């Protein structure tokens, strides 16, 4: 489903990604671990075409995403849900409107939005806070809204960039359970994290990065640094 092919990324002479190559199959749950500055976030940015690689290609199915025209790039991004460590919610919109925005952007009808948004919020156990603004929600609740926004268009891939980085252990556990549930429903998940407990509890594939390189890729790995 995803294929990184000898991807290099250089920032001002510093190599953030140094010849990264790996594949991700459909329905897989892949965790990427590494110290800060190892290149995890850069790797995910490549997948969203938020940054261009200095060299190499990234394929989504058979498509080289850097050869896509702008319109098709928008369509591709709608097939990838994304969750950030700092939530990145639209501050002047309610939880409902934040999720509805992702559906509106993908051209869904008002009826579909009215049916799917409450369902997505129920999935992350946030049905009661539908009309709250982000500043009225706790960190864990904001992250759940972000997850609901990421999955509401039923993406093929969900990217979660340190989604538990700002959360307490209880909320961390909840978020990981939600990600597992989403993966069980058929969505490929790529997760980056620093949290040893999260990785060890998942028991899924773990890619370990150091200085922009993949140093370990275990099908049922643990957090080893």
């Amino acid at each position: 489903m995803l294929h990184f092919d000898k991807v290099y990324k250089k920032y001002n002479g510093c190599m953030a990604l140094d010849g990264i190559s790996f594949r991700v199959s459909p329905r897989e749950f892949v965790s990427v671990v590494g110290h800060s500055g190892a290149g995890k976030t850069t790797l995910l940015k490549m997948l969203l075409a938020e940054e261009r690689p200095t060299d190499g290609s990234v394929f989504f199915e058979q498509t080289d995403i850097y050869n896509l025209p702008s319109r098709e790039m928008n369509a591709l991004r709608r097939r990838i849900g994304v969750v950030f460590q700092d939530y990145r919610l639209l501050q002047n919109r309610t939880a409902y409107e934040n999720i509805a925005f992702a559906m509106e952007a993908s051209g869904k009808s008002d009826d579909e939005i009215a049916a799917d948004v409450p369902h997505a919020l129920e999935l992350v156990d946030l049905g009661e806070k539908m009309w709250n603004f982000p500043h009225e929600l706790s960190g864990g609740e904001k992250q759940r809204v972000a997850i609901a926004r990421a999955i509401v268009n039923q993406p093929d891939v969900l990217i979660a960039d340190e989604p538990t980085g700002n959360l307490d252990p209880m909320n961390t556990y909840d978020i990981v359970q939600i990600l597992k549930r989403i993966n069980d429903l058929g969505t490929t998940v790529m997760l980056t994290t620093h949290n040893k407990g999260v990785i060890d509890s998942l028991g899924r594939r773990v890619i370990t990065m150091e200085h922009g390189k993949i140093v370990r890729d275990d099908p049922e790995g643990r957090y080893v640094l």
Partner: protein
Amino acid sequence: MFWTNVKRILRTGWQHFMRNAFVSLSAVLIMSVTLLTIGAVAFTLALLDGSLREIERKIDLTVSFTTVAPENEILEIKSALESLPEVASVLYTTREQALDAFRARNQNDSLILQALNEIGDNPLGATLSVRAKNPSFYESIAKFLASDTALSPAKLSVIERVNYEDNRAVFERLSRFVSSAKQLGVAVSVILGLISVLIAFNTVRLIIYISRDEIAVMRLVGATSRFVRGPFVISGILYGLVAAALTLTLFFPLTYYLGDATEQFFSGVNLFHYYNTNFFEFLALIGGSGLIAGALSSWLAVRKYLNV
């Protein structure tokens, strides 16, 4: 789908405007200053234009006839003048009318009235007041009256004086002064207008700069440029339109307050009256400027952050 998107963009733009009330208020106030400046420019130009027209209206060319000039000769000269394409109107004042006007003007000056009675006869000649369609035509009308090819020697001999040369220097100096003032006014106004438009642009840019992270998120969830930009442009238009409404309302008390002063100083142009009679022109100017400035500044400011 097109209309659904339009509806969503309008709704989101309205929400953005209402939910960021403090930001919207500051944008509206800054834009109001811009629109007030643009309006003040329009008023200044109108005042200068009114003054110039008033001066032009006061210019005329008077042909004085000898006291013995036969009326039929005068009327023939009047017809000849009226047939000239440069002439707007010719007013004939008979000797008797001239005398009556003279008496009326000096009714409190017994010395002059006494002198007039002692003369016995009417010492004043008839006059023709000629008004040209354009001040620059007076010179050719004066030449016509002095030329013996246009008028017969008999007609020329009844003309005592054409006052064009006497007044010309004063008129030309006044016209030059007003038209220089107008040019200076336009230059200063354009500079002021540009500065205030730039300030309005920068305010909107700043507002959108605050939203740059949100724009990036919208792009990352797959929203098209148009879908991201649309609501910001709508908010920009709302800033402009609300500022225009505020400005147009403020002009009523402002022009009312300044109306009498401007009427005395600028030869009869009352700002309040001028604003009322030209309100729809001002509505188009201020409303249009607000709408364009708001929409364009938002459009340009968002563009910078769309490259995600």
